[in-house]
């Protein structure tokens, strides 16, 4: 539960902020590029919806998640390693990896899909407000675009991606932190490596899942 709060609830603000602006910017930029009078305005919302669900919510938020949660996991475990707290657990006869790492992975896999759902919704809200307030699209057109030709499978695909990304970020970051050796400098290096490798893993997995599932 503590891990769910630390990983999920404590990330809501950042995820919401990023998602809201991603949606807003996507709307404005799509409107800027769709200049043909032959293309109806509701297409802007349709593009925002599909981009958000398929890519922006799971993947861009995944990168944010790796930066916030992944670095925190790696530095937390790394500090526990160098300050002998992990040794203390082992000496007590506790399986330290099960005790420390498993809850983090389970919490990430449970909470990240929820963050992606929140991000998707808020991105569309952000797009709506930006579009309507700047008069690039009317509320009716935006709602029409969001609902037009909706394929539910895109949501399933986004959730499959979010489970995979959560597992990758939490396991890579835990691994880097758990096996830290040395001192404070190495903890920093482990944290940086955790974020870098998590982001690379997310991008590779994103491509592979798109190839396999779309």
């Amino acid at each position, binding site marked *: 539960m503590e891990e769910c709060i630390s990983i999920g609830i404590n990330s809501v603000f950042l995820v919401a902020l990023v998602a809201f602006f991603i949606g807003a910017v996507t709307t404005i930029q799509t409107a800027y590029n769709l200049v043909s009078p032959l293309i109806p305005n509701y297409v802007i919302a349709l593009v925002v919806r599909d981009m958000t669900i398929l890519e922006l919510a799971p993947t861009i938020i995944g990168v944010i998640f790796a930066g916030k949660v992944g670095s925190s996991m790696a530095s937390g475990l790394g*500090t526990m390693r160098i*300050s*002998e*707290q992990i*040794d*203390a657990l*082992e*000496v*007590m*006869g*506790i399986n330290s990896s099960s*005790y420390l790492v498993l809850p983090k992975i389970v919490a990430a896999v449970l909470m990240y899909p929820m963050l992606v759902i929140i991000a998707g919704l808020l991105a569309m809200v952000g797009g709506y407000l930006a579009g309507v307030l700047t008069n690039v699209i009317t509320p009716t057109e935006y709602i029409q675009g969001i609902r037009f030709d909706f394929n539910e499978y895109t949501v399933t695909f986004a959730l499959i991606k979010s489970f995979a990304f959560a597992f990758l970020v939490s396991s890579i970051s835990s691994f880097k932190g758990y096996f830290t050796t040395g001192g404070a400098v190495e903890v920093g290096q482990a944290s940086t490596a955790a974020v870098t490798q998590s982001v690379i893993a997310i991008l590779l997995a994103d491509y592979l899942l798109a190839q396999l599932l779309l």
Partner: protein
Amino acid sequence: MIKIENIKKSFGDKEILKGISGVFERGKPNLIIGSSGTGKSVLLKCIVGLIAPDEGHIHYDEHELTNANRDTKTEIRRQIGMLFQGGALFDSKTVEQNVMFPLDVLTKMPKGEKLDRVNSALERVGLAGQNQKMPSEISGGMQKRVGIARAIVNDSNYLFCDEPNSGLDPQTSILIDDLILELTEESNITTVVVTHDMNSVMGIGEKIMFLYKGKKLWEGNKNNIMDSNVKEFDDFVFANKVMRKLKKG
């Protein structure tokens, strides 16, 4: 009692422990001493099972640790309390939660009984009433005492202390040494202390093992330190002028 036989350990090409044997007796503090880099901490980690030795055997009374199955290892480890060099307290937990931790994860005691044992352990180390403080709010000496309380709260049969006096002033060091001695004698437990603090050696050195470059070069107690004729041991023990004068005088 803990018995070690021919413990060898290398990291890569570097041989750290070169076949160390000995017995750590119950009811008295057993000190492992030596200068930095001689393998004291590696030996201690081998004994508690944090590092697997390349060769040799470690016996905890009737149990053999090195070839034990997982259940036996867990059973042995649950009888071990260890004080780490930096205290190794869990930063996110209060003093009370730190001391209660072994009881939380290793026993099914009711909360009230756990709290009684925690309070008793904290009182034993002179920290009664400090339950709700965080490790960052207490001094280094107090952190060491909380570490000792955590090590003894589960009625451990074996107590290991890795440099219990490092970073402490002489008075607090003596306090920690006295506490270790009292706990060892009163509870009749097997205590192994790794140190290079000569005050500890002279204060609680009921049984002393001297390591030099991964080998055991001398064994004895604080009363026969003066009679040693091992050069490396004398160089370590009588490193300062006062001790040298004492030896000559």
